[in-house]
Structures are given as C-alpha cells and as structure tokens.
C-alpha cells in the first residue's frame, strides 16, 4: 500500500518531465503525446537557431557573473550574521532572505525602473545584478549552516600557532565552509539558470537569457524545438546534481543540520 503511494507520488512528480522528453523526439512539427516516431531534428534545430545560441551565451555570462559575485558576498554576509555582533541579527537575516518572498513580477518591475533610471537597460550588468539579488538568499542560507557548525576554537588554535587573521580565513575557515559553499554554488547556478520572470522585465533581444528566449520562441512557434531545449536543460541540471552528489556529498550538506 505504502509502496503504491510512493510510486504514485513519483509518477506524479516525474510525469511532466517524461512527457516533455518524449515529445522532443516527435518527428512531426506539433506538440503531441504520445510521439508519432523518433527524430533528432528538433535537437538540431535547437543547436542551430541563432537566437538560442546568443541566449545560451548570455545565460553563461549572467549566471557565471552572478554566481561569482554572490558566493563571496553571501559568504561574508553569513559570517557577519553569525559572528558580526549585529544589533538586530534577526532583522538582517530577514532582509537578506527576503527576495524569497517578493513576487517575481514586483522584483522585475523594481529592477526595470532602477535600470532605466541608471541608463543600463541595454546592458547585461542589470541582469547580473538582479540575479545576484535573487540567488543571494540561497547562498546565505547554505553557507550560514556551515558557519554555525564551525568551531571557533579552531580559529583560536590557528591564531595561537602564529596564523594572521587572513591566513586563518584561508587555511581554516574557508576549507571548513566547503560543504556549505558547494551547496550554495549548486543552488545559485540552478536558480539563476532557470530564472525567468525578473529577467523578462530587464532584458531585450540582445541580452535575453535562455528561459526568456524559450518563452519568446513558444509565443511564436509551437513545434517540439522547445521540448528538445527543455530536455537539454533537464539533462544538464540532472548531471550537475548527480556530480555534486557523487563528488561533494550533497546528502551530507543537507543532513548536517
């Protein structure tokens, strides 16, 4: 009985994915299920469509830039929250985690107005800044857990052994935060790469990232190209999570609280 419930639940959660992957191999130009045959043509279409190529490059730049900025900022924020003797630590924590509860439309509108005021509407910089704000809560959360687990005596020990505060940070603190940093990296990449609503507000044809380009495509065409691209997206995310679990021990990251 219990096994059946679990099976139903798994089916319910994976069915949309299975359908999308199946449709992506449909040889005809309609989004129908079950597929009428097998073909790679939509995958060829994905890889040769210029707007997707441009968007993929944008995605790489935006996600790469945002993650590169959010990781150090989030790490310092997590350290400050735990160690900084802040006046109102709970308030600071709530503010840092607040983007999680702000509707995407509101955030997008806000960034749009700010970008217009700053005259940066045609720049990818706005996208990067927005993505930093959007992934920061995930980074702070993940690193914070590792900071909480860090024994301050270890840093005292390092100081007694002659290490300067900088050396302590790089030889002791940072290596011990590694599990949290890996989790943060993974979350940040996944969140940024899949972000759509806010990015839609602040990008144009030249700067748009993949999810926005996919949306634009669906608005105009209804062939399985989009299913093929979605399948690639799913595959990439799956491989990423699998690698993280395999080499970094994702289970440890989540179970260490």
């Amino acid at each position, binding site marked *: 009985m219990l096994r059946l419930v679990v099976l139903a639940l798994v089916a319910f959660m994976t069915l949309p994915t299975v359908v999308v992957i199946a449709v992506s191999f449909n040889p005809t130009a309609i989004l129908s299920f079950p597929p009428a045959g097998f073909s790679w043509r939509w995958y060829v279409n994905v890889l040769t469509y210029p707007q997707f190529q441009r968007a993929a490059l944008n995605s790489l730049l935006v996600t790469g830039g945002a993650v590169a900025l959010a990781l150090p900022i989030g790490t310092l924020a997590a350290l400050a929250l735990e160690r900084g003797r802040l006046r109102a630590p709970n308030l600071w924590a709530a503010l840092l985690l607040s983007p999680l509860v702000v509707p995407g439309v509101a955030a997008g509108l806000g960034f749009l107005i700010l970008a217009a005021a700053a005259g940066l509407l045609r720049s990818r910089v706005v996208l990067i800044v927005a993505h930093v704000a959007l992934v920061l809560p995930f980074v702070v959360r993940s690193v914070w857990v590792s900071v909480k687990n860090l*024994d301050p*005596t*270890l840093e*005292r*020990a*390092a*100081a*007694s*052994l*002659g*290490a*300067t*505060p900088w*050396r*302590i940070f790089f*030889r*002791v603190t940072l*290596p*011990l935060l*590694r599990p949290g940093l890996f989790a943060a990296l993974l979350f940040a990449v996944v969140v940024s790469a899949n972000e759509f609503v806010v990015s839609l507000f602040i990008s144009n044809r030249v700067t748009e990232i993949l999810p926005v380009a996919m949306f634009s495509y669906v608005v105009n065409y209804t062939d399985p190209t989009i299913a093929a691209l979605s399948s690639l997206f799913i595959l990439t995310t799956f491989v990423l999570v699998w690698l993280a679990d395999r080499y970094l021990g994702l289970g440890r990251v989540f179970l260490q609280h």
Partner: protein
Amino acid sequence: MAKTVVELQGCTREYGPVRAVDALDLAVLEGEFLSLLGPSGCGKTTTLNLIAGFVDPTAGRILIDGEDVTGRPAHLRGLGVVFQSYALFPHLTVFENVAFGLRERRVSGAEIDRKVAEALALVRLEGRERQRPAELSGGMQQRVALARALVYRPRVLLLDEPLAALDRKLREEMRDELRAIQRSVGITTVFVTHDQAEALGLSDRIAVMSHGRIEQLGAPREVYERPATRFVADFIGASTVLRGTARGADRVALGGAATVQVAVGRALRAGEELDLAIRPERLRLAAGPGDNVVEARIEGLVYQGAQTELTARLGDGQRMLVFVVEPAPMPLAVGQTVHFHLPADAFMLLARAGASA
C-alpha cells in the same frame, strides 16, 4: 631565584557586570609547571586566555620575558596552546596539523619533515602522519594537539583542561605522559584544571583561584597541608573546619567539646576566635579518653573498600569528617560514641574573612 617568564600585573577582565578576573597578580617562573586550579567560573580559563591573547584585559598589564604584550594579538605571542576539545583541524592530516605552526613560521620543507617527525616521536605517534584527526582515538588526538603546540618550541605552553575530555584510565595515563614530556622538554607550562588530584600530581606550584582572584599560591604539599583559607581547605582534598577559642599560645577550646593542643606555626592570643581545618585522614580512632582526644557520636558510615568515610558529631554539635583505613581497628555502627585522636600538627589555621592569619 628562577627568572619570571610570564607576569600578570593587576589584570582585570570584565564581561558586562561580571568580573571574571579581578586585579590578578601572577608570576610564572622559567621551566615550572604551574596549575590554575579552581571550580568552574573562578576565572582560571579567562586567565589563560589573557596570557594567550584570546581576550584582552580591561585593566592591568601582561608581560612575557619582561616585555609588555598587553593588546598584542595571539598570533604574535609565540605561545603553544592545547585545548580541552583538542581543536585539531579536521580537514588536515596529522602531519599537516603538527606542521601548521612551522608553515606559519616559513620553515623550510626539509626542516618541517624533521621537526614534525621529532614531535610525533615525542608523543609516540609515529606512522600516523597521513591519518585524519577523526580516525584517531581521543587520547591520540590529544597527543597530536600536544605535538602541534610543542613542535615550534614555544616560549610557554598553555594547557586548557587538556585531560578533561578523556575517560578516567586514559586520563591518568596521559597525566603521567604529559608530566614526563613537560620535564624532558623543560618548557614553562601553565595548566588550567578543576581537578585537584591532577593539579597536586602534576604541578610545581598551584594557584588556587576563586572569584577571579588567587586564594593561595604554593607548592602542592604546601597548599594541601597549609591551606591559607577556608575555600582552599574545602576545595583541595576533604576537610572539616572546627571553630574554637584560644585558651593559650597553643591551646584551643573546641566549642564545649574539649580543649586540645595545636601546632599551627604561630602563637595564639588567649580569647582569639579561630577556624581550624583538619584533614579526615589525620584523625585516628582512639581506645579511650586522653590528650587531644575528643568524643563524638557516629552519624554516617560509607564503606569505600580501602577506607570508610565516617561523619561524627562532637558534643557541641560541630560535625567532623573522618577517613578510617580499612580494616577498622574496631567494629563501627551509626549511633555509637567513639573517641578520636587529633594530632596537634594536623590542625590548619584558616584566615578569617576580614582578619589576617
């Protein structure tokens, strides 16, 4: 007289309204093993942290080799510290843990290999270089911590309850080993502990602390046999404190119970009110009345194998603790009236609050 290595001058450390260390003066001498002994909250660990540079004093000065190091950060003090929790770096191997201080001192690779091997040999951990701390037992981890703190030949070794996390048998082994290593290296050592047996067994001198102050500083035998205050008499070993009134230079009336002769190192003034401590193992069962013999009624008996712990009440209501070595010279029972001989030199005169001893 030996040279002073570490000196605290009027050091005070406040945490909000709490004065953890209160105008403390202390001089640690070259090569000695000095224990800071006291109950939790007495300020012993704060005193160690002041020396290590982990906390700064709110008042007073700290000198190392005559040089004022007050306010100097821990990493510039060149001391070795061993923590109760070991505080080994979990992401580094045993070798890298021990090498940590050498790398910070930019010692060459070959020199590091040689010194780490030496330090690990000193604590008998050869062959464990490539293991992680988590793969070692508690006792081994503590030995790694000791090697890590000794490898760069620090001026002073600071030990913060290093044995407290070990189980009893291992603790005794490590205690002997610690003493042997300290002797062979000849390093000036400050040892924080709440365990009086450890302090008595290891130290050249003991500073007994209470409420951020040193109650008494002296050799183990001196502190045990001549406790300066009631606190010291209570904290180190068991003792009974009897109130009495001097009847002459060496005669004291213990309440209404009896008058006894005492030898406390000074002449008493007749009429003086006194607190006299006596160790339970110094009292002996006596066959009957005699000189320095008191009569008491047994109130409690706890058989402990090698000895029986006995509580008895004197005629005036004062209670005494007595250890009777087994087998006892006579059968004992609660409610029985017995006689105890109190040797004159077993009495220890305690300072009374507000009066000088």
